[in-house]
Structure formats: structure tokens, C-alpha cells
């Protein structure tokens, strides 16, 4: 009986320990490879604390190709966020306020990126554009509509959960009875109350854009993931160092989001804004 109790107590901790090793060990190995100037063959325990350096990462960060690709990715991410919020905020509000029967249809449309593979999307859409507006595909911003489609499921769900947590109809009616016009209701009541959902949607969209490879590769755009894939051949240590660096940055960003979320859930009483998995 005592043994059973001991196993019952130790098992959850063991499980967590295994999970940590499973996720952290590759990252640590990656860090050693990226930041230790020691031949891979000599990466034993005896050299654990020797010759650590961030030179590889700095070299990569100083590479003009890197800053160019980062700038392309950030610009594309920015416009994707704008386009998506511009499309999805009114759509989600409309579905909740005026057309609840259409919710199922909108939800189905938003999960299309899961069903249609990126390659089919690119081949279909680029074929159309090549014949009617070839200049569009030449621009880096041609990625924006594709990425908007890819990030649509996250944006819709994030907004949907945020709106469900509000008594939307009453808030809109209350604001209108106090003399607010429709645009005033949107700016002074709805958007401030959906702040957490909007931030969530924006960060998830940025994550999708910063991690997307297939479409950028098919359209021959020099985005950050494309640069990293190419740099792995040229300067593998620097590229992996950059990968870790981006991972740390993304983690910090998401920690900030969750702090804002917690702060907001205290003041706005929004429960459980959860947007699902991070790609």
C-alpha cells in the first residue's frame, strides 16, 4: 500500500521530468552546437564550460541579408495583422450581433487553411495573378493575402472567445442609448474590451508569418525563414544561434501577452481567452 502511494506520488513528477528532458535537451544541445567553438566530435562532458561565444550569432545578426529578410518578414507581418484585423473584427462582430446563423459558415471558412495545403493555395492563386496582375506577385507584399488566410483560424478564434466573454448586445445597446454612434461604439466600447483578443490575434499572426516557409519558398521571397534555411548551409552555428535567439524573443513576447491577459481578466472579467496552439 505504501509502495503504491509512493508510486502515485512520484509518477506525476517523473512524468514532468521526462517531458522537460524531451523538450529541453534538444534545445541545450542546440545551444552547445551554436555557441561553443569546439568541433562537434569533441562536444563531450569534459568541455561543457569551455569556449562559449556568441560570435556566430553576432556574425549572422550583422549579415545585411539577415536584416533585409527580417525587415521583409516584419513588414509583411505588420500588414498581415492590419489586413486580418480589418477583415475579421467586423466579420466576427457582425456574426455575433446580427447574423448568429452565419457563425457556422464563417467558422468553416476560417478553418479552410487547415484543409487546403499551402502549395495548392499558391499554385491556384499565383496562376490567377500571373495572368491578370503579374506585378503583384513580384512584390514582397504578395505574401500578405496568403498569410492572412493562414492566420485566419487563430484570429477568428481569438476574437470569437473574447466576444463571447462579453455581453455584446447589451453593451452596444447601452452605448447607443447613451448617444454613441456606431463608430463611437466600435472605438470606445468594443475595441477597448476586445484589447486582449486583438493582442492575442496580432501576436499569433506575427508568429505564423515569422515561421512560414513553404509559401515564401514557392513565391521566391527572401523572408526570415528562407534566410535561416539558406544560412544553415553557409553558417550552421550562426543559423542555429539565430533560431534560439528568435525562440527566446517569441517566448518573451508570449509571456508579455499572458501578463497583459491576466491583468485584463482581472479588470474586464474575461474568462479563459485561449486561442489554441501556436504553430
Amino acid at each position, binding site marked *: 500500500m505504501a509502495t503504491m502511494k509512493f508510486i502515485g506520488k512520484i509518477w506525476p513528477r517523473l512524468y514532468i521530468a521526462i517531458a522537460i528532458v524531451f523538450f529541453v535537451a534538444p534545445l541545450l544541445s542546440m545551444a552547445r552546437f551554436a555557441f561553443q567553438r569546439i568541433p562537434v566530435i569533441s562536444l563531450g562532458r569534459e568541455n561543457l564550460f569551455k569556449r562559449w561565444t556568441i560570435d556566430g550569432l553576432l556574425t549572422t545578426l550583422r549579415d545585411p541579408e539577415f536584416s533585409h529578410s527580417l525587415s521583409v518578414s516584419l513588414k509583411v507581418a505588420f500588414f498581415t495583422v492590419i489586413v486580418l484585423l480589418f477583415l475579421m473584427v467586423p466579420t466576427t462582430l457582425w456574426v455575433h450581433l446580427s447574423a448568429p446563423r452565419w457563425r457556422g459558415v464563417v467558422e468553416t471558412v476560417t478553418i479552410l487553411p487547415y484543409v487546403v495545403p499551402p502549395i495548392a493555395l499558391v499554385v491556384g492563386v499565383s496562376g490567377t495573378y500571373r495572368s491578370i496582375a503579374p506585378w503583384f506577385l513580384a512584390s514582397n507584399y504578395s505574401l500578405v493575402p496568403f498569410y492572412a488566410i493562414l492566420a485566419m483560424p487563430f484570429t477568428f478564434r481569438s476574437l470569437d472567445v473574447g466576444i463571447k466573454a462579453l455581453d455584446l448586445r447589451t453593451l452596444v445597446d*447601452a452605448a*447607443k442609448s447613451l448617444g454613441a454612434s456606431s463608430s463611437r461604439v466600435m472605438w470606445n466600447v468594443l475595441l477597448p474590451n476586445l484589447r486582449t483578443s486583438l493582442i492575442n490575434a496580432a501576436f499569433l499572426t506575427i508568429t505564423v508569418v515569422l515561421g512560414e516557409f513553404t509559401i515564401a519558398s514557392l513565391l521566391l521571397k527572401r523572408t526570415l525563414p528562407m534566410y535561416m534555411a539558406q544560412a544553415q548551409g553557409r553558417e550552421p552555428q550562426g543559423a542555429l544561434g539565430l533560431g534560439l535567439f528568435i525562440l527566446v524573443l517569441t517566448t518573451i513576447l508570449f509571456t508579455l501577452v499572458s501578463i497583459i491577459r491576466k491583468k485584463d481578466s482581472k479588470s474586464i472579467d474575461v474568462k479563459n481567452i485561449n486561442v489554441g496552439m501556436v504553430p
Partner: protein
Amino acid sequence: MSALDFVKVSKSFGEVQALVDFSISLEQGELVSLLGPSGCGKTTALRIAAGFEIADSGSIHLESTNIIGLPANERKMGMVFQSYSLFPHLNIRDNVAFGLKVRGVRNEERKKRAGEMLDLVRLSDLGHRMPHQISGGQQQRVALARALATQPHVLLLDEPLSALDAKIRVEVRDEIRRLNRDLGVTTVFVTHDQDEAMSISDRICVMNNGKIEQIGSPRDVYNAPATPFVAHFVGSINSLPVGDTRVLIRPENLELVNPDASAQWCGTITDITFVGAFTKISVLLDDQKITMSVLTISAQFEHHLSIGANVGIVERKS
């Protein structure tokens, strides 16, 4: 001149007729309750007045101006909802000042007016708090202050007490009555609770199936119900056989007597419920198998009451 006039307002949702030729005039400063069961059309009438629903036909006049085509934000009406409708991202003072802000009132003036309104509902200490930091009763009082801050011509209250517990409900109800009297603002109060309507209203408009059954003072509606529906919906009533017909008599107008020749009806006590101020007694009539309720009247008689006892009932002579 009436403050608010509904003239033959009708509204359907698909096959359902929510409101049929609804007409009523409210005098300046009057508090009128729309009373009826769920689905009787009372909230629809209020939402049409507020501009949140569009009437199929009819008109609404606010101080003789037809407002039926005006959008909700131009109607100069304040509204309080059943659910606490305070804006979660604004503190209490900013909630109260919201209507003034959208009307372009300057910051200093806004603050002053919001402070005055919070004084009016006796919550001036809570201006800096967020809505979730105050109780439901306080939230509804803030919602009242917010609706009144813009000095509306008419105050619309959509079951504002339904979400509150019994004790707080009475407090907020009294607050509404006090504000209506002090400020003289014409008020439409929607409720399904007859006690609420009786205690707060100058007049009650009893509704059923989208139609008005009766409009009158609480006393008239209770003592002289125009239809059997009103008689049954407002207060308790017994339907008792007299010859070939039936008469409707309120429990407090019945008296228990010995089951002898002087009794108009005789029966057996099936239940005795002590309710505090009075005792409710259910009696099964000998020949009609009808359960009814009466109020105990004489303390002497009360001692003899027990379940299964035979009693006589007479109508009290007023």
C-alpha cells in the same frame, strides 16, 4: 401634452405577433410599469421606444415629435438593462460620464456632473472602482446614474431588478421611485413581477400576448381587474361557484367561519402555510373539489385550525 405616446404600435417576429396595436400615453414625470408574463411584448415595446427594434406599424411621439425613424443614439432616452451593462474597461466615474463624453461635454464639466450623479445614487465614494469591484445592486445604481447623467427625456428600465437578490431588489426599487419623484423624469418600467409593479408605479399597463389587457392605477388594477387574465396575473384570486356562475374573490376578502348554515361554502383544510404577516390556508370544497386560499382573520379561530378540519367560508362584508 404627453411626454411619451405609443400610437397603435405593432411588431411581429416571423409568425409571432409580439405587439398588437399597442397604444399608451405617459404624462410628464409619470412612472408606468409594463407588466406581463414572459413573451407578452413588454420588452419589445420598450426596445421599440429605445430604437433597438423597428416597429412594423404605428408611431411613437416624444413630446409630440414622432421619433419612430430616429436612430437609438438620437432619441434622448436613458436605458437600464436587466444584466449589469456597465462598460467593463471603464471605472465607475467614467461609466457615468460616458454619455456626456459622446455628447462632447468638456472634461471638467463631465467630472462634475458624474460626481453629482454618483452623489444622487449615494455612491460617490466608489467613482475610482472598476465595475467588477462593486456589488450587483451598486452596479444597477451606477447604471441608473449613467442613464440619468445625460438628462434624458424618458428613462426606460428593462427588468432592472431581476438579477438582484430580494433585499437589494427592494433597495434599488425604492431608489428608482425616489429618483423618479425627485427628478420628475418620465419612466417606463418593464417587469414580470406584480409586487414590483404594484409598489413602484403611478399606473400599470398589464399585457398579454402582445395586447394591453388593462391600464390603470395599481389600486384599480388590483381591485377592479378588467379581464380574468388581469385578475389572475395581479395578486392571488379564487374562482368560486355561485349558483351556475363563478365569482372571482381575493383571499383577503374571504373569512373562515364554522361550517354551518351561515357559510357560503364548506370544505376541508388541506394545507396551512404561515407566511409571516398572514397565514395561507388551502381548502378543498366539498362539492367542487377546488383548492382555494384564504387569510386567517380572527386569532380565536386560528387556534382551531388544523389540516383535515371542516370549515365554512363567507365573503367578507366591506
